[in-house]
């Protein structure tokens, strides 16, 4: 690995370049996340999965979402639940953890009985 590179970022670059070892790791991670989503989706009828976090965002930027969708389709009791219209991956809106800043305000407003 080149000096000064973060492992996750290096993995992403190698995955995008089609290197076999990186594709294998992405498959392993996608498989684990697909199993997680299968369990959740079987318990609740959620369509919207909002993701955040450095590792997650980088992988979703590189297309792991469609890899997860393909895998979870094979696991779900109803494969249609994995269709784009029924399973949506959404990046957290806003920069600089804006969601957390806005949420802290929202929850304080709710505590104060303003909502």
């Amino acid at each position, binding site marked *: 690995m080149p000096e000064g590179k973060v492992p996750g970022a290096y993995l992403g670059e190698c995955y995008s370049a089609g290197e076999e070892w990186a594709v294998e790791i992405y498959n392993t991670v996608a498989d684990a996340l697909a*199993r997680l989503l299968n369990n959740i989706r079987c318990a609740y009828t*959620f369509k919207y999965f*909002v993701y*955040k976090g450095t590792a*997650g965002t980088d992988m979703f930027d590189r297309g792991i979402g469609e890899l997860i969708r393909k895998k979870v389709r094979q696991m779900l009791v109803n494969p249609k639940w994995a269709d784009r219209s029924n399973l949506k991956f959404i990046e957290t809106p806003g920069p600089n953890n804006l969601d957390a800043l*806005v*949420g*802290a305000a*929202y929850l304080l407003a709710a505590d104060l009985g303003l909502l």
Partner: protein
Amino acid sequence: MIFYFLKSLTLQEEEIAMAETIFRTADVGGSGKITRADVVLNSVGRFWKADNLITSKPINSVSELIDFTTADMVPGILGVGYSIAGVNDKHNKMIVAPNAHYLEGHKVATLTLAKIGHRYKSSVRNDMETSAGGVHAMRAEAGIPTNAPFLIITIGTGIGAKYALLVDGKLVILDSEVGHMVVSSSPFDPRCGDLAIGHVEGIASGPAIDRMVATYLLFY
């Protein structure tokens, strides 16, 4: 979209008059830096804008955190809300703060009000709770229909998630420990932070991925 989020003009009097609620909020990040903003919500709790978005240098004490968070308060602010990873007691005292151990044992909200006065309100919330609340307030920006429940999942140092749904029009945020859901039965899977094998956090979190990269580069 970026322009919409980043417009950071000083609040003008007419804007304050139009706004239903303005809060000073702070997010305690993993790097030790704090980001603060003046968040304006409209009358139904939807996000309107964030002004004065500023990130600090690394902070190492509760007094530094409060000083940074409450600096340059504009007129009209109703309260100070914190978003901090970990476990808190009654939205006030930090019990566990993995990103900011210096906060553990401190009643952050009480100390904040002692500094700025009791005419304000203050509360401390878990960072995943605030993320869920924030996404709810920004549904339009996120493309989530008004009443649709959603799951917010963080894939970073660990894997965490909250369920957000509306009950009688009120946001309800449910806890979960999805990071410790078993997703593999192989005895060769790496161990999770709690030493169990097969947890999704042991396979798909940032540190787990880093370990896999190191192993592949070493042996292949």
